[in-house]
């Protein structure tokens, strides 16, 4: 197999040393050469001094999922030398700083070692101590650029963009780059047997992380009140909203903000504020991760029962409890879908790409206001915090926000009568009024206690049941509005199919391709929303067995599927990766093969 544009590079650094942006430079240069690339940052839950990795997969075929097996390891962290060396594929390369010699015992015969005296070079070439430290990163980028046949001018172009306004930083960066590149030229054979070649395979794609995309989507979706409490990995979503809003939402005349952001005192307050704002007719959201979801659950029940729109993003990380705050997982599905005591059910959106983060985030406000209920977007750390190649965002300027059933003053004047919780249209969705609309009509008392169709307090059994049943009807309406699943079908050509969602998409699509190549093609479906629409049950209906691919231990979405769609569990085979690293096609294939051999395991 040709090794052009098909390999994995892993960088091993110490966190807090600015390595991530150098590593991203490499990934971005591959992208600029028109070659599909995906990058994953694996960082510790601390600020400085611990091992951190950055993994770049270059893949001509466009597979953007993670892949096991490292072809080139660039390791500048002696703390992790041992396991870094051990993790290189046979025949692979280990590039390291040979200013100090390597521990003999770490050496392996079956891989190549490339020593570049990074520290020596920097000490010699730079005077400022900070530069000596920082430019080591650029020197190794220079080295691999040469080893992998990347055009240095692309990197130079990236420097020019990065340092706009700080142009004097460009020259030393270029210098460092060439120091690395020249060192390789003078000391090693290059390029390696795998390398990058220019292609035209990325089209008009962009590179962005899911949190930035969602933050931008919220600006486009019309969010004007944002409340939040810092927590990894959701923090950068709100930061992105803030950055974009600062640019796009300042009133040009007054310099005032057409938005408000409040850092709340905790997650209970964050969701409370978002609910209060939505109650009052502003689009508002909050973002959090696992622990925040737990803390928000009382308020989610209130919003469900009082029928208030609110948008929440859960950027999932590895649970339970504090868990692994900087590792990915899809393990808040049951908590989110059924959040809060009592009989509750919430709407979930499940993006797979930054583009979907953008779209679903903007749409979430429409759904929440149309359905008058919480909408939770289930992102994850892998999607949210890594930069992904993704299709460009689009906006139809003719689009109008769907604000749902909100009565105006004149509508109130003409209506013979009105009740906040009456199901006038038979779709389970009542009409609401906003505070301040009309001097004498349309006021009501919003409450989490039992109420009748006119919002009056009631402990009457029949009334209670009526309202609770209507809430179920509303969710039926939701199924028709929410994004339909993506179906991968070529006519029924297999007894088995695959079901996946969220960030398992890339790995699953790759696995589908492999299955096809292996002569055992399977159909597949990607779920984008909860509650599941009829297409999902129809799809599952068609197959004997459906592999449900998830990144959690307890097969949470499978649980939702069998419960909500009344599917025989025997039909749904668990494929579960929950070690905190993004799932791979290999893992999926292995699990499927295993099951096909020993179906009862």
């Amino acid at each position, binding site marked *: 197999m040709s090794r052009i544009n098909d390999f994995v590079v892993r960088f091993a650094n110490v966190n807090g040393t600015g390595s991530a942006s150098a590593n991203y430079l490499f990934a971005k240069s591959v992208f600029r050469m028109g070659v599909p690339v995906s990058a994953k940052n694996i960082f510790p839950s601390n600020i400085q001094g611990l091992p951190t990795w950055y993994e770049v997969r270059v893949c001509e075929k466009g597979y953007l999922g993670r892949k096991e097996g490292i072809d080139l390891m660039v390791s500048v962290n002696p703390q992790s030398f041992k396991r870094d060396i051990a993790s290189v594929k046979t025949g692979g390369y280990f590039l390291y700083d040979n200013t100090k010699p390597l521990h003999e015992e770490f050496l392996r015969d079956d891989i190549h070692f490339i020593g570049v005296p990074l520290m020596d070079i920097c000490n010699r070439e730079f005077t400022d101590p900070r530069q000596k430290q920082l430019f080591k990163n650029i020197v190794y980028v220079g080295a691999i650029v040469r080893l992998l046949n990347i055009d240095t001018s692309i990197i130079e172009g990236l420097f020019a963009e990065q340092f706009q306004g700080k142009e004097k930083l460009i020259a030393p960066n270029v210098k460092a780059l060439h120091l690395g590149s020249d060192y390789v030229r003078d000391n090693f054979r290059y390029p390696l047997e795998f390398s990058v070649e220019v292609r035209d395979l990325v089209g*008009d794609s962009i590179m962005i992380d899911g949190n930035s995309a969602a933050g931008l989507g919220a600006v*486009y979706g019309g969010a004007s009140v944002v409340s939040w409490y810092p927590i990894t990995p959701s923090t950068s979503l709100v930061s992105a909203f803030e950055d974009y809003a600062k640019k*796009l939402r300042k009133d040009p005349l007054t310099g005032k903000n057409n938005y*408000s952001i409040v850092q709340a005192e905790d997650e*209970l307050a964050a969701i*409370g504020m978002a609910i209060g704002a939505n109650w009052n007719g502003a689009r508002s959201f909050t973002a959090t991760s696992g622990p925040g979801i737990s803390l928000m659950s009382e308020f989610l029940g209130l919003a469900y029962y009082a029928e208030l729109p609110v948008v929440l993003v859960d950027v999932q990380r590895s649970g339970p409890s504090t868990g692994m705050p900087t590792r990915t997982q899809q393990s808040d599905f049951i908590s989110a879908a059924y959040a809060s005591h009592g009989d509750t059910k919430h709407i979930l959106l499940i993006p797979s790409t930054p583009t979907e983060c953008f779209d679903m985030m903007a749409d979430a406000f429409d759904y929440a206001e149309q359905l008058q209920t919480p909408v939770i977007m289930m992102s994850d750390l892998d999607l949210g915090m890594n930069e992904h190649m993704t299709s460009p965002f689009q906006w139809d300027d003719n689009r109008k926000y769907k604000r749902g059933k909100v009565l105006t003053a004149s509508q109130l004047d003409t209506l013979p009568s009105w009740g906040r919780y009456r199901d006038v249209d038979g779709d389970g969705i009542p009409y609401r009024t906003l*505070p301040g609309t009309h*001097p004498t009509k349309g006021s009501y008392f919003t409450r989490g206690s039992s109420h009748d169709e006119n919002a*009056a307090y009631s402990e009457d059994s029949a009334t209670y049941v009526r309202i609770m049943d209507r809430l179920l009807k509303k969710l039926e309406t939701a199924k028709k509005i929410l994004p339909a699943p993506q179906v991968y079908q070529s006519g029924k050509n297999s007894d088995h199919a695959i079901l996946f969602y969220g960030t398992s998409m890339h790995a699953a699509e790759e696995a589908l391709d492999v299955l096809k190549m292996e002569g055992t093609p399977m159909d597949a479906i990607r779920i984008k929303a909860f509650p599941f629409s009829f297409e999902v049950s129809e799809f599952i209906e068609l197959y004997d067995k459906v592999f449900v691919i998830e990144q959690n231990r307890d097969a949470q979405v499978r649980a939702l599927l069998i419960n909500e769609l009344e599917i025989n569990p025997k039909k749904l085979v668990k494929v579960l990766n929950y070690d905190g690293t993004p799932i791979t096609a290999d893992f999926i294939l292995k699990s499927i093969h295993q099951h096909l051999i020993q179906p009862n395991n």
Partner: protein
Amino acid sequence: MTYIKPKFAHPRLPKNELGFTRKEYEGSLSTLCAGCGHDSISAAIVDACFEMNIEPHRVAKMSGIGCSSKTPAYFLSNSHGFNSVHGRMPSVTTGANLANRSMIYLGVSGDGDTASIGMGQFAHVVRRNLNMTYIVMNNGCYGLTKGQDSATADYGSVNKTGNMNSFEGIDLCALAIELGATFVAQSFSGDKGQLIPIIKAALSHSGFALINVVSPCVTFNNNQGSTKSYDYVREHNETLSSLDFVPVKEEILTDYDHTKVTMVEMHDGSMIKLNKLSPEWNPEDKLSIMTALHKAREKHEILTGLLYIDNQSTELNELLNTTSVPLNQLTEKELCPGSAILEEICRGLR
């Protein structure tokens, strides 16, 4: 939307400047115990809003959970109300206020709702100087769950079951001042004469206004030994200031005694005519009121009146530099940057 209470206004009932009678500021029939202090506070709210010519629909009534938090159903039935969850009224009000800064936010809470489960949100809404009036109907107990001691029950006070409280009560006024509240008053549900002008002044204040009202729970905490009983409060109520509220349009008398009376101008141009009843105390000086409160506490007295005011403070929307247009009224054009900008952003991401 409760239609329980008949509301035919008698044709000769007095009307305010908006043409509303007092009836139009009332709510549905109270389901609280007969004699509950909270009902008197509701009545004072009705009076204050009627007399101030407030358009009821410009008021948002916010509350948590408790007997006290039910009261918004019993006043201003033409206002929207939000009975949220226990202890979290401040956050809901913050969001509501950010969404529409042009309305009047009137929060009602209990001592359990505020000083126990709500302590965190209370502290932070004070700190943010949210433009709202926050009334604590303080009965020193959990009325709705049948009379347990709350965190404002005084040390040594005895509850209905005869248990003595072994913890110091939290002084919500001193606490709020310490946390930076910009309007702090204390009153007694039985003293409408004092309470009504305080409510008016609070509603006129631009920023966070706390009114801590001792409001006896007749069912569970009105016995001898309770420091939140009618008898105790009547006996130990020390008036620190008496005040008149002078609405914007009214002319201000110039011939008052400046040594005794301070005129405080509110943000909206209205005035408070403040009779200081203690010479050492200055309503605009934190230290003097903190000192007065500490001394009163030692004497087991309850200081009432307007205790502290900073009428120059900056409320949250101003602190955040938010546009003066209520955010919920921004047009789609103002909210959505459009496709051209999006394309430009995408170009920058290639």
